[in-house]
């Protein structure tokens, strides 16, 4: 298939960027979106032009690096799919595809499609962990966990920190990401001990990073490649209220 691509090019964090139009030919529909980008970048290198900078790592939907806003959707049109897992058969021959970086004050553009998501790391460092003394790993089944809690924690733990929730949200709110992390730990006995300080610190850091306020549009849940539920956001609202009342 032949495609017209309009891709955001931006030299660095300081300079203004713009959309640049490229043509690609004979793209196989079995390629992933990133493989299509590889083809385009080889073309550019052959022509002596600067290839397009984009983030990627695992290419199997688990690292959360491949942030691209494709035709107005985070990670493109497919439900529950990262950009690396998006196949070209989701597009038609002759399509024009617009690709932009995540847009949020808390995720500044580094170059082209690459954004700095270290705001997420700082939120995690502020409380997204459990404090344990090191030593031999204990048998996980030593501590009984109710099945429902284990399932909910596991579902929340599927979050790969990709930032699609922030990118899709009209307020650039990080509530789905932060609530998934808060939930995952608060639901399990090992994490429950620090649940108050955790939610207080993580919400504080989230606000300081300049993410917006949640207005419950649920765009995050609709665009999340791991289909994290907004029930986690309600849980974080409860956790936060509880921690403040204590």
């Amino acid at each position, binding site marked *: 298939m032949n495609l017209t691509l309009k891709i955001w090019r931006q030299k660095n964090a300081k300079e203004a960027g713009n959309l640049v139009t490229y043509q690609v030919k004979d793209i196989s529909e079995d390629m992933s979106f990133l493989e299509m980008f590889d083809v385009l970048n080889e073309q550019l290198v052959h022509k002596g032009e600067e290839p397009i900078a984009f983030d990627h790592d695992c290419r199997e939907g688990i690292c959360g690096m491949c942030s691209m806003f494709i*035709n107005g959707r985070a990670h493109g049109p497919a439900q529950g799919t990262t950009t690396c897992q998006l196949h070209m058969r989701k597009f038609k021959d002759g399509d024009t595809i617009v690709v932009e970086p995540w847009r949020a*004050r808390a995720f500044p553009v580094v170059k082209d499609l690459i954004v700095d998501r270290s705001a997420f790391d700082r939120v995690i460092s502020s409380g997204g962990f459990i404090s344990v003394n090191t030593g031999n790993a204990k048998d996980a089944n030593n501590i009984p966990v109710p099945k429902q809690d284990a399932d909910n924690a596991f579902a929340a733990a599927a979050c790969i920190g990709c930032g699609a929730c922030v990118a*899709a949200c009209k307020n650039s709110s990080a509530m789905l990401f932060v609530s998934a992390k808060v939930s995952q730990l608060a639901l399990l006995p090992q994490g429950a001990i620090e649940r108050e300080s955790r939610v207080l610190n993580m919400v504080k850091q989230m606000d300081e990073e300049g993410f*917006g306020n949640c*207005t419950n*549009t649920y765009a995050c849940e609709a665009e999340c490649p791991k289909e994290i539920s907004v029930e986690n956001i*309600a849980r974080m609202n409860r956790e936060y209220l509880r921690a*403040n009342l204590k």
Partner: protein
Amino acid sequence: MNRFLASSLGKKAVMALTGLFLISFLVVHCAINSLIFYNDGGVNFNAGAEFMGTNPIIRTMEIVLFIGILLHIYQALILTLNNNKARPVKYTLNAASANSKWYSRSMGLLGTLILMFLIIHLKQFWVISRFTDEITGGHTTLFAKMQEAFSSPWVVVVYLFAMISLGYHLLHGFRSAFQTLGLNNKKYTPFIQAIGTGFSVIVPFIFAMMPVSIHMGWVK
């Protein structure tokens, strides 16, 4: 408490609580005003209005109501400004309708329309009944004032438009408030959403029927 109110989550909780409080006011307001549908020349309605205007508990609640509205608007303004700042560079292409409802993304706009309506509405009825002696002095009645106001088709159109805005504001606001307060539950959320949808359609519809019925002469 200060930490709570300074946080994004705390501000949202204020929105939700004041929003739900305003919803409870709508129930009372809608019930009293529906007395016009007795179609008795406004006798029951005027009696209801007089009770609301003179009862000390209601008058105190009126002050609480104004505080609630102001808090809701103030917090809405802060949250909306904050949210606009969170994305300084907008997307060239944003297919937002693929992931969310337009009215959930337009709460600030819908709220502003409601606020503009409220100013007109309060000036038309509340100011006259509280700050002039037109009604308290027995020169006219609130029902007669309604008939006068709704004789104009433009006023009726403004009211209809405002009630559509209110309906959409509530369609998102009702369920959103529960989520904000942490009340999301596999078993009960579908009920809350159904009640919210019913409320958002029925209450604005009853309100909208008031100017329409009076204008058309169905209620005299």
